[in-house]
């Protein structure tokens, strides 16, 4: 299903015309209205007139999270504060928060792109959409809220937390569509089963949209099985707009980027050079139509690959693969770069192990050591020590094969790894390298 079929299936040539037109406009606008950009463009020796083709975007300087922090709070706004109707700030997991301001038109745009996401995966006005993303100081909640209201669905703004209540709402209201983080989705199924004796797959749930943290194909299967739904990946970030930058279609093979509004590039995170299509690198986004706070070449730090071949769903808009890691989330262990997702992937491949794990980094002598704690579960428990020991060794071997570093796997008791209702804390770095 399509929210705006003409646009979502636009001719690639026509799309490029639209993008170029909008890029020229936004570059001119920020150069005139935002001293931060004028200064940066001047330093780079580039004028708005220099943008003659889409490829010229590579001459524009990047905007980083550090730039945003320096501009805190309102330094990147391109309109007077009186025109701003809503302010969000990022969850601030890595330092001083960043701020995003929205005009009336920006909010309408947000609702529009989120409406495309929801309709794409089959949501209609008859759906009951329960939003278990936070609403305060986090764009997840309101982004879904605006989109779901735009398509006329019934919104249940549950916000994050209060797990028991979430499950009661699902049951009593007959929730059909769930939006939350994937780790919380799994937690919900577990809590429902163990604390309330409810099997979520017997409820009316049919679609889920999950994001705001990295997850894997195996987690998708697990969520789909436990909830009896189709689970889709949503992508977005406060700096650009919030959720709704990209979303999976029913093909479940990559996320369509609404690139008439958000122009995607993939760069080499080390050199900053654009990479050819199909190569993995860091996603860089330019918001082409934002009024309140346009973003020029924002470095997302998210690692992915961009694809442009036509999708089975009929859409022509580019797709990104699910986010594989963060360029600043890499752990360097004995000189080897590893991403938490690789370890997660390995654990999940060893069949039957529930995805509750934590990575602990230590440096007892001069060498880094990696301990991966994996929770024991009923499904894989054997009353035989040998069998469990074999499982543990299989986990160690699989992880070593995947990341190229020897790790120690410890099996721990159920529920001993802290559960999160927002983002999962997967890495505990005890190395004290400073």
């Amino acid at each position, binding site marked *: 299903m399509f929210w705006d079929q003409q646009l979502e299936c636009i001719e690639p040539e026509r799309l490029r015309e639209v993008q170029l037109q909008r890029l020229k406009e936004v570059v001119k606008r920020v150069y005139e209205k935002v001293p931060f950009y004028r200064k940066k463009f001047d330093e780079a020796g580039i004028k708005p007139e220099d943008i003659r083709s889409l490829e010229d975007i590579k001459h524009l300087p990047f905007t980083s999270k550090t730039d945003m922090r320096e501009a805190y709070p309102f330094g990147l706004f391109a309109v007077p504060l009186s025109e701003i109707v809503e302010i969000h700030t990022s969850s601030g997991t890595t330092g001083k928060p960043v701020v995003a301001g929205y005009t009336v038109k920006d909010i309408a745009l947000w609702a529009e792109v989120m409406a495309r996401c929801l309709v794409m995966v089959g949501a209609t006005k008859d759906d009951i959409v329960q939003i278990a993303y936070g609403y305060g100081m986090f764009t997840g909640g309101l982004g879904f809220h605006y989109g779901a209201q735009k398509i006329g669905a019934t919104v249940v703004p549950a916000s994050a937390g209060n797990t028991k209540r979430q499950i009661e709402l699902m049951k009593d209201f007959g929730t059909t569509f769930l939006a939350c983080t994937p780790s919380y989705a799994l937690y919900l199924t577990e809590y429902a089963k163990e604390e309330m004796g409810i099997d979520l797959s017997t409820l009316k749930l049919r679609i889920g949209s999950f994001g705001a943290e990295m997850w894997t194909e195996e987690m998708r299967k697990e969520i789909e099985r436990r909830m009896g739904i189709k689970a889709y990946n949503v992508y977005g970030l406060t700096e650009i707009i919030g959720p709704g930058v990209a979303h999976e279609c029913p093909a479940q093979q990559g996320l369509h980027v609404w690139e008439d509004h958000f122009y995607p590039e993939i760069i080499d995170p080390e050199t900053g050079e654009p990479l050819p299509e199909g190569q993995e690198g860091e996603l860089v986004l330019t918001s082409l139509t934002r009024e309140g706070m346009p973003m020029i070449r924002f470095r997302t730090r998210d690692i992915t690959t961009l694809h442009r071949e036509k999708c089975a769903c009929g859409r022509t808009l580019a797709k990104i693969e699910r986010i594989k890691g963060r360029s600043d989330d890499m752990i360097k262990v004995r000189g080897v770069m590893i991403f938490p997702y690789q370890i997660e992937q390995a654990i999940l491949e060893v069949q039957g192990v529930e995805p509750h794990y934590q990575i602990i980094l230590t440096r007892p002598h001069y060498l880094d050591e990696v301990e991966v704690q994996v929770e024991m*579960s*009923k499904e894989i*428990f054997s*009353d*035989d*020590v040998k069998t*469990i020991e074999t499982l543990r060794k299989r986990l160690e071997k699989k992880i070593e094969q995947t990341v190229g570093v020897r790790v120690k796997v*410890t*099996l721990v008791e*159920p529920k001993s790894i802290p559960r999160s209702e927002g983002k999962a804390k997967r890495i505990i770095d005890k190395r004290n390298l400073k």
Partner: protein
Amino acid sequence: MYKVEIISIFVENKPGKLEKITKLLAEAYINILGFSITDARDFGIIKFLVDKPKEAYELFKKNGFVVALNPALGIEMKDKPGGLYEVVKFISSKGINIENALVYVAESREKAYFIFEVENFEESLEKLKDNGFELLKLV
């Protein structure tokens, strides 16, 4: 039926774990008849033979433990030199492999039971019964 049930619990190898587990049993007035602990580095498996196995199983489950309830066989042995030897000789003569075992001393200096788990419970029971050895009946 000549069947006993054994509770197996997964525990991390940390101080106070056994204390917590035995406290649960004590508070529920469940009597431990025999137990064994197998240790593998960071974790271990504690096995119990108790007077109320189903209750004990539910109790551990409710308290968040990974726990299993498995059937086992019990054979009476004489509490004298060669007592265990007689019993295991009999078991091996039937081609049965002992997976895990513990001892239940029913009457001190008189009677004890060799409690063991096997791969195929029903089949093993058939082979062992009516052979002059006393099988334990608790369930």
